[in-house]
């Protein structure tokens, strides 16, 4: 879902721009390392292919048809980092040339579709082992990519203060689910045809990377999904502080927007907790990578 300008609050588009800029910057550096110079035109042409592919309609019956979105297809053919760069390029052209999606909202659109949706859709493929599992992974990946992108878009609009009635939210979820299923099936159809037309076009994820991907995926599910069923009861220390009467003396020395693992402006909502959990994961990942690089440099020196 391409969000136009004028719908998101400043806090949301600034935040998503920052997240997207960091993610796309990292992906671009990685893509430049992974690909040699001869492959740069390939990325642009693949982006043009996705545009053109959206013109090929697949019949759905009842006089309707659908088309491929392509983020998972790009990820399994080019790799996730180059695919992020290509999807970002597509969204940029869509915003500037076709006014499909805003310019200020580009950060949110890139985050939803080119980063989070793409990586979530690639995750099943990265974890799948045998050929049969890979077919299922493609369908699940396509479904997940659309659900994540759509869900994030709705959450960003809600956090921007747009009143969304529950019935409309569930209707949107239903539409996303239908589109997600279509995307999964289309991606499977194209990859199967590619296996005949151009064997070797589709990459397989390295075994060593699967463990990291599995751990990362589990952390993501725990931090954003399982918080919905987490206990609200205080932990041992908080409980002890309440019983001994010293809880009232506690003072926060610094105020942050993620206090108590919730978003300050949406403390009682699931997405407030999920957003806080996701932010914490990203910060810890960034700190871990930075520390690993520092230690690696010291060791090599």
């Amino acid at each position, binding site marked *: 879902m391409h969000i136009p300008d004028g719908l998101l609050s400043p806090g949301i588009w600034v935040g998503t721009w920052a997240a997207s800029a960091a993610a796309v910057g990292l992906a671009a550096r990685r893509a430049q390392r992974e690909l040699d110079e001869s492959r740069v035109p390939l990325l642009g042409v693949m982006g043009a292919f996705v545009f053109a592919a959206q013109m090929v309609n697949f019949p759905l019956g009842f006089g309707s048809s659908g088309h491929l979105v392509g983020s998972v297809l790009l990820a399994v053919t080019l790799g996730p980092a180059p695919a992020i760069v290509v999807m970002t*390029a597509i969204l940029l052209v869509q915003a500037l040339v076709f*006014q499909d999606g805003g310019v200020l909202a580009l950060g949110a659109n890139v985050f939803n579709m080119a980063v989070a949706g793409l990586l979530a859709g690639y995750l099943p493929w990265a974890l799948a082992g045998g050929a049969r599992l890979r077919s299922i992974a493609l369908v699940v990946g396509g479904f997940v990519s659309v659900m994540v992108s759509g869900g994030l878009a709705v959450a960003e609009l809600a956090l921007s203060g747009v009143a969304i009635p529950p019935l*409309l939210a569930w209707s949107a979820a239903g539409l996303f689910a239908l589109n997600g299923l279509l995307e999964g099936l289309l991606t499977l159809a194209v990859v199967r*045809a590619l296996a005949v037309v151009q064997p070797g*076009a589709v990459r397989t994820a390295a075994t060593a990377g699967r463990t990291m991907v599995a751990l990362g995926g589990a952390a993501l599910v725990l931090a954003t999904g399982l918080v919905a069923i987490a206990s609200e009861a205080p932990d041992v220390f908080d409980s002890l502080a309440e019983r001994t009467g010293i809880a009232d003396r506690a003072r926060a020395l610094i105020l942050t927007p993620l206090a108590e693992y919730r978003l300050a402006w949406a403390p009682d909502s699931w997405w407030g907790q999920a957003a806080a959990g996701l932010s914490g994961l990203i910060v810890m990942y960034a700190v871990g990578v930075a520390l690993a690089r520092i230690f690696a440099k010291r060791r090599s020196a």
Partner: protein
Amino acid sequence: MHHLVVDEWSRRPGWLQQRDPRAKLVVLLTYLVCVSTMRELTPPALVALTVPLAAGLVLGKLPVSGVAARAMLVLPFAGPVALAAWLGGRPAQGLSLLVRAFLSAAAVLVVAGATPMPLLLRGLEGLGAPSFLVLVVQFLHRYLFVLSEQAQHMRLAALSRGAGHGRARRRRALWRAAGGALAVLFARSHARAAAIHRAMLARGYRSAIPSLAHMKMGVPDWWLAAAGVILIAGLRTVLALGS
């Protein structure tokens, strides 16, 4: 087609077309931020926000009806969000969202209509966009219409052979055919990319696409950037103080 019309506008002999793309992008971003941060869109605010747009249309010799019609393309996407706000008991918010989306789309069209895409990309690179990303976008934009035309031809060829008509038991065959068409398009795109790189190497390509246009901010460009930012920021401040 939309992109051809906007491309034609960018080649008109307007004052705005002669300006540095970086100056135009800075003014555009200032305007978008101004519209985005408006809490209420009162009639005076609406009139005030159309002044920079009108100035852009005049300075770029852009057609008012053409820009307005193309800016309305954003309404089907903003419409459901506005409907959600209306059903949520906030009709004023819904209307405000629609107007903001329209004004923002019109502003982007004014800049896109006054700047050829290759220059716009160079402007983005000059403002800090990663060079690698800009390079990919340049290739994408260059071959977008070539591959889209190829996909159109494949679609017409399939339709002329009776594709798209069939009962449920043939739908599987139609899916396989559409999947096969995309796979062939993918393979052709892949092969074309390799040929493109070889051709560019033969013409002296060295990791960047050279341009004849030399970007340098002259006095009129600095005037545009400064006046645009100051006037729009001033407008925003006055509207904020008045509300």
